[in-house]
């Protein structure tokens, strides 16, 4: 077992270094800051770095597919809520043309630096075409 795995759970073993998506240190997410109205939802959100660390925990524990999912999740932290919902709906069957799916993959890769998500959408575009699941 490696050092990284031994850090799990991060809440106990890496509390000093953990930061929310906002950049606020976990140690600064306190009752006082909540009371003072200093917190925002971004302080309750997991960061891309932490998701990558959890992906590494999953990979080392023998859950490679779950690790890949957490990597994709890390990438999606950069995408706003409404945009994530829109992307999901685009991927549902019969919603998009091949070109629209490829455009989504480009957007993910180039604008959001989300190569794994982009790859998944690109793969879907090809298979949707093969299986007739594109917008008619």
């Amino acid at each position, binding site marked *: 077992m490696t050092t990284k795995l031994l850090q799990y759970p991060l809440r106990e073993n890496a509390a000093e270094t953990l930061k929310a998506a906002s950049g606020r240190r976990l140690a600064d997410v306190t009752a006082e800051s909540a009371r003072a109205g200093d917190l925002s939802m971004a302080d309750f959100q997991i960061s891309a770095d932490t998701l990558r660390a959890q992906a590494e925990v999953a990979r080392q524990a023998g859950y490679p597919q779950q690790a890949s999912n957490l990597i994709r999740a890390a990438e999606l932290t950069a995408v706003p809520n409404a945009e994530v919902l829109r992307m999901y709906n685009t991927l*549902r069957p019969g919603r998009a043309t091949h070109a629209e799916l490829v455009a989504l993959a480009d957007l993910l890769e180039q604008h959001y630096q989300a190569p794994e998500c982009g790859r*998944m959408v690109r*793969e879907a575009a090809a298979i949707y075409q093969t299986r007739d699941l594109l917008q008619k």
Partner: protein
Amino acid sequence: MPISRRFQLLEQREINRETFVEPWPEAGLIVADSPADPQPSLRVDGGLVVELDGRPRLEFDILDYFIADHGLDLASAEVAMATPSIDIARKLVDINIPRAEILRLASGCTPAKLVEIIRHMNVLEMMMGLGKMRARRTPANQAHVTNRREHPALLAADAAEAALRGFAEIETTVGVARYAPFTALAILVGSQTERGGVLTQCAVEESLGLELAMKGLTTYAETLSVYGTEGTFVDGDDTPWSKAFLSAAYASRGVKIRFTSGTGSEALMGHAQGYSMLYLEARCLIVTRGAGSQGVQNGSISCIALPESLPGGVRAVLAENLLATMLGLEVASGNDALASHSDIRKAAKLMLQFIPGTDFITSGYSAMPRRENLFGGGNFDAEDFDDYSVLQRDMQVDGGTRPISEQEALTIRSEAARAIQAVYAELGFPTITDAEVEAAVLAHGSEEMPARDVVADLAAADKFLPGEQTILTVVRALQSRGFEQVAANLLEMGRQRVAGDYLQTSAIFDRNFKVQSAINDVNDYTGPGSGYRVSGERWQEMQNLPQAKSPRDFIAEQIGTPCVRLAELGPAQSGVNPEVIVAVGPAFGTALTRTINGLDHEAVLAAILTGVASQGLVARVVKVYRTSDCAAIGHAGAQLSGSGISIGLQSRGTTIIHKRGLARLSNLELFSQSPSMTLETYQSIGVNAARYALGQATTPVPVQVDNWARLRLIVKTALLHRHETEQVQDLPPMEMRFDWEPDF
């Protein structure tokens, strides 16, 4: 045809309200081994799967593609596919083979290969496998909390009680979708009132579910449904890629995800394509794994009645649970949707998951009455709480819940209802009145709740969902209204969301808000003495049923002031005249003074003597010291009796009519049902004993039989007998004087 009364009664039994059908493979009405199911095969060329279970890549459907490209670990596949399926089946039940080795093999198995492994296994073997392959060492359980009127105070109170009962996750859903943000909020606040760390979710349409999660109102999502054929998947308005994207989207917001699948859904949705339910479920499970979900809710779920209508259906449901664990997935193992009219059938089915233990024994134990369950009725309901607790205590099996006292429940229900009331007030939602809070504390169902203004509630919910108020507003509301601990728990839930530990396989939080998952609480079962064992404090709390009593004061009612009218004279002599001996036990009238049903010993004796006297005979009373056994007491009395007839009377009331010359354990009449005895019975026994002594033809005294008496009174019987046995001494039978005169 003549009508058999027995068959007529059988026809009316609950079990015969179910539908039973013969298999029909073409319609997908077959649980396993359909003629259409493929043979296992896997061909890989240059790292690309080119054939899967007999199908070349060019003919793949969306599931085949996803399984081939994401679901299989090709590094393990060569060994796995070359290992005979029976060998893998044997490894599953071999305690010397650890879970990790099975995980490696299963990760390279195609769907048809997985099904072939199961073909070699019976239910007992699968249960052994499930106990070993469950991902989390410690089993747990999930509750459903809903109510028909979607009342927030009742939802919060029921969620708090469910948390108190030990459920690690609480799922809710809505009748009217627009209620979702309020319902999710009520469950969250209620559950965290009892303890921090109960995971909560609200089952709604996928997009709405994601919105709730983003607002911080839920911490897990489990209704990401997957199906075993392309047609069903698309009818479900998703593909494996959209589902995989959705699971990444949830995880990106720190939300634990679990997919849902289950035997029967494809047949129900008309797209089974002639395949067996289990083969299609194996496909679902590999897709689930391929999408990177940490777990699955399976075990047929809402389709349960469909496999149950077919032969081997319940076995197939266990098989799908086992397959999921073999793929390293957390399993919430069904037992949620109403599965049978028959309590026997429901309980028997439950045992398949309850005894081996799964990550969540039920994927939704209905924590309210069935009529309040918006999931369509639970298989086990609030009315069954005590039954469930007793099952845990009976078998020393951890079913993930604990018994609670009424006082504990009312205290926490009250606090939860007041907490949600405070949140509503601070956030400007329609007021929850004190009367509603009070009703929620004591209510069993929503019909006991005051009506709310539905239009106003829905309008407020509509405004809340897209608005600026979030879980943080809720935290501040709780703080400012003095619910510091609830606020602290919600805040810690937020920190945990930032840490993401509960995204890992089989993660829950324990009562100390510590994460417990397949990473830090991995199932290490390798046979007796290993793995999870019920012990220590957990075993204590499982034993402590509120209705359990101390047996020490069970017989207080039978112990009174020693009878003053009964005096011991000295060793008894053999009689020569026609007489009846009434031989009493060593505790009679002294250490014990009343029978099991509360009759005074003096009154019992008087009744017997009255009966004897009515036939013109006299009775002598002797006390037998050397035994507490009823037959032996009677037997000893018969040896002293001038007529050879005796009545043996134990202090608890059990009575025998004995006769000299009979074997000790034989008798003329035996009255073993002491709780049914009345003074009239005792008098009749006196009459009969006298008639036997006079050599008259005698009809046995009719006895009342209460089949439940033994169940009700066996502990008391044992303790009374023990008390009498403690009075046994090495003394001869003693002549007793009973200060009594016949009334006539």
